[in-house]
C-alpha cells in the first residue's frame, strides 16, 4: 500500500493535469476497477448487491452531486432529493413517451432535466446568499414533491402513484438481475466520478472554490459569479438527477416520489458532512458509512443488545447515533473521513518517522 512520489517527474502540462499523476495511483485505481467490475459480480450474493452495494453507489453519486454544490461552490442545498426525483421521473417519462429511446439516453435526458430544474431554483442564488438560499432549495424540495404527487401525468395516470421501472436492457443485453443492476450503477458512477475529478481539478473547480471562499473577492478578480453559481447548480442537479434515475431504476425498481423526501436530502447532506466537504473521495466514504451504520446497528440490536432495543427504539437509537456522529465530525474532524484517510496515509508514508 505504501508508495512515494519521489522521482516521478512530469515533463508536459498534460501530464501535470491528469487525475492520477503517479504510476502507483494508476495501478491502484486500475486494480480497484478490475475488482469492482470483474470480481465482485461473481463473488457477491444478491443481498450484498441489493442492500449494500447498489445503495452505496447511488448515494455516493448523490453525495458527489451535493458536494459539487455545497462542498466546492459553497451553496448550501436541502433539495438534493428533489433533483433526484426529477431525474427519476423525467427518465421514466422519456422512456415511456419516446418509443425506441435507448435506456442510457433516457438516463442522460433525466439528468439534463434535473439540471434544468436545478438551474431554475439556483437562479435566486445571485441575489440571495447564505442561509437565505436554503429557502430556494427547500422550495424546490416541496414543490417537486407536490407536483409529482398531485399531477398524475408524471406517473402516467397510475392510480397508486407507484410505477414499476422499465426493464433494464442495453444493446439487447438484459441487466435486470441484481448483478446486472450493480454493473449498470457501477459503470455510470465510475464514468461520472472520473468526469467530476477532471472538472473539479481544472478551471471550473477552482472557480467554484473561489466563489465558495469569498464571492466578492472572486467577482473582483473577474470570475463571472452568476455563471459559476448556475453551473454549480446545473452540474450538481445533473449528478443528483442521474443518482435519482439509478435509485429508481437500479435500486428500488419502482419510480415513486415518497422515498425522495426531505429526509433523503438530509441523508445526502450527512453523507458529505461525514465524508468530507469539498472532496470526491469524501462522498464515497460518507456513503459507505451511512449505508453500513444502520446495518451494523441492526446486527448489534439483534445480537448484543437483544431485548434492550425493540424495533421502535432502534430507529430512535439510529437517530441519536447519527446526530452524535455529525456533531463529533463537525467538532473533531470538520473535513470528515476523507481527511482522516489522508492523515492515515501521511502517517504510513512517514513511518518510522513521526509526521509533522
Amino acid at each position, binding site marked *: 500500500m505504501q508508495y512515494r512520489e519521489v522521482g516521478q517527474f512530469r515533463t508536459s502540462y498534460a501530464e501535470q493535469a491528469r487525475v492520477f499523476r503517479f504510476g502507483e495511483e494508476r495501478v491502484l485505481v486500475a486494480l480497484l476497477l478490475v475488482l469492482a467490475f470483474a470480481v465482485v459480480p461473481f463473488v457477491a450474493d444478491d443481498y450484498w448487491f441489493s442492500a449494500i452495494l447498489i445503495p452505496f453507489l447511488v448515494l455516493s453519486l448523490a453525495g458527489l452531486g451535493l458536494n459539487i454544490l455545497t462542498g466546492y461552490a*459553497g451553496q*448550501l442545498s436541502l433539495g438534493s432529493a428533489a433533483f433526484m426525483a426529477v431525474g427519476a421521473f423525467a427518465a421514466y417519462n422519456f422512456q415511456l413517451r419516446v418509443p425506441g429511446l435507448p435506456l442510457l439516453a433516457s438516463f442522460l435526458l433525466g439528468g439534463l432535466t434535473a439540471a434544468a430544474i436545478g438551474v431554475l431554483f439556483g437562479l*435566486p442564488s445571485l*441575489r*440571495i*446568499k*447564505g*442561509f*437565505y438560499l*436554503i*429557502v*430556494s432549495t*427547500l*422550495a424546490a424540495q*416541496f*414543490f417537486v*414533491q*407536490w407536483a409529482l*404527487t*398531485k*399531477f398524475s401525468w408524471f406517473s402516467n395516470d397510475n392510480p397508486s402513484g407507484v410505477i414499476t421501472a422499465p426493464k433494464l436492457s442495453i444493446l439487447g443485453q438484459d441487466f435486470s438481475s441484481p448483478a446486472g443492476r450493480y454493473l449498470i450503477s457501477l459503470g455510470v458512477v465510475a464514468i461520472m466520478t472520473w468526469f467530476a475529478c477532471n472538472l473539479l481539478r481544472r478551471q471550473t473547480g477552482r472557480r467554484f472554490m473561489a466563489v465558495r471562499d*469569498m*464571492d*466578492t*473577492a472572486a467577482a*473582483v478578480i473577474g470570475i463571472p459569479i452568476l455563471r459559476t453559481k448556475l453551473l454549480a447548480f446545473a452540474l450538481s442537479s445533473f449528478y443528483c438527477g442521474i443518482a435519482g434515475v439509478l435509485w429508481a431504476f437500479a435500486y428500488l425498481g419502482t419510480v415513486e416520489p415518497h422515498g425522495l423526501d*426531505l429526509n433523503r436530502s*438530509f441523508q445526502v*447532506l450527512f453523507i458529505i*458532512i461525514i465524508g468530507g466537504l469539498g472532496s470526491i473521495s469524501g462522498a464515497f466514504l460518507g456513503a459507505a458509512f451511512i449505508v453500513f451504520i444502520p446495518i451494523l446497528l441492526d446486527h448489534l440490536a439483534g445480537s448484543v443488545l437483544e431485548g434492550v432495543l425493540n424495533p*421502535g*427504539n432502534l430507529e*430512535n*437509537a*439510529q*437517530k*441519536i447515533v*447519527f*446526530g*452524535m*456522529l*455529525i*456533531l463529533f465530525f*463537525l*467538532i473533531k474532524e*470538520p473535513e470528515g473521513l476523507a481527511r482522516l484517510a489522508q492523515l492515515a496515509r501521511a502517517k504510513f508514508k512517514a513511518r518510522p518517522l513521526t509526521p509533522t
Partner: protein
Amino acid sequence: MQFFLEVLVGGLFAGVMYSMVALGFVLVYKASGVFNFAQGSMVLFAALTYVSLVERGFSVLAALLSTLVTMLILAVLIERVVLRRLVNRSQMTLFMATLGVSFVIEGLAQTVWGAQVHGLDLGISDEPFTVAGILLSQFDLFAAATAALLVFVLALLFNRTRTGLALRAVADDPLAALGLGIHLPRIWTIVWAVAGVVSLVAGLLWGARTGVQFSLSLIVLKALPVLIIGGFSSVSGTILAGLIVGSTEKLAEVYLGSLVNGGIEAWFPYVLALLFLLVRPSGLFGEPSVARV
C-alpha cells in the same frame, strides 16, 4: 366577502402560531449567529416532556416547572457540548451542528417518552363562536394573547435589562463584547435557555391544537419562511411575517389551490419567501449586510 374575511382571520391566527416557533430562531440567531434548526425538536421535546409528566400524575404547575428546568439543562448542555467547541467556525458548520443536535433531541425525546400521540388539554376551549359574522375560537384569542405577552416580555428583556444589553452587544459584535468583559458562554446559555422557554410555550400551544406527536418537530419547516421574510434578527419582523405567511397561505390554498388540485400550502410560503427575498435580500426588517474583501 364574508368567506374571504373568515379565511383571512383564520390565516392570521395560524400565522401567530408560526411566529411563536420562529421567535425561538430569532433569539438564538440574534445572540449567537447560529441558525438553529433544532428549534422544532426543542418544541417537540418540551411539549412531550410536559405531557408525559402530567400523564404520570404531576400537577400542572409541577410539570411546567420540571419542563422548564429540563429546558434549562438542555440549554446548558448544548452550550457546553456543542457551541463552545465550535467557536469561530463558519455559520454553515454551526447550522449543520444544530441539525445534529435536532436528531439527538428527537431520538432522545422519543426514546424516553415513547412515540405515541398524546392529547394535551390546556383547559381552554377550542369551540368556535362568531363575532360580527366571523368564526373565532377562544383558543385562537388565547394563543394571540400569549404571543403578544411573549413579545412584550422579550422586548422588556432585550431593552430594559443589563442582560438584554449584553445580549444585544454580543449580537452586534461578539469580539467587541468580549473585549468589554461580557462572558460569551454565559450569554449563549441564557439565550438558548430563553429559546427553550419560548419553545415550551410554542410546544404547549401547538400541542393543544394538534396533539403532541412527532410531527410537531416539523413545524420548524413552517417557521422557516416566516423567519426568512421577517429577517433573521427582528422580533417584530417575525410577528409581521408570521401574519403575512399565515394569511396568504390560507388564502392561496382556498383561491388558487382549487385550480391546481390543492395542497399548495406545502410550498407556497417558500415561494412567497423567495419573492420577498428577490426584492429585499435580507428580509423585511433584517439588517442589510455590506460585503467587504
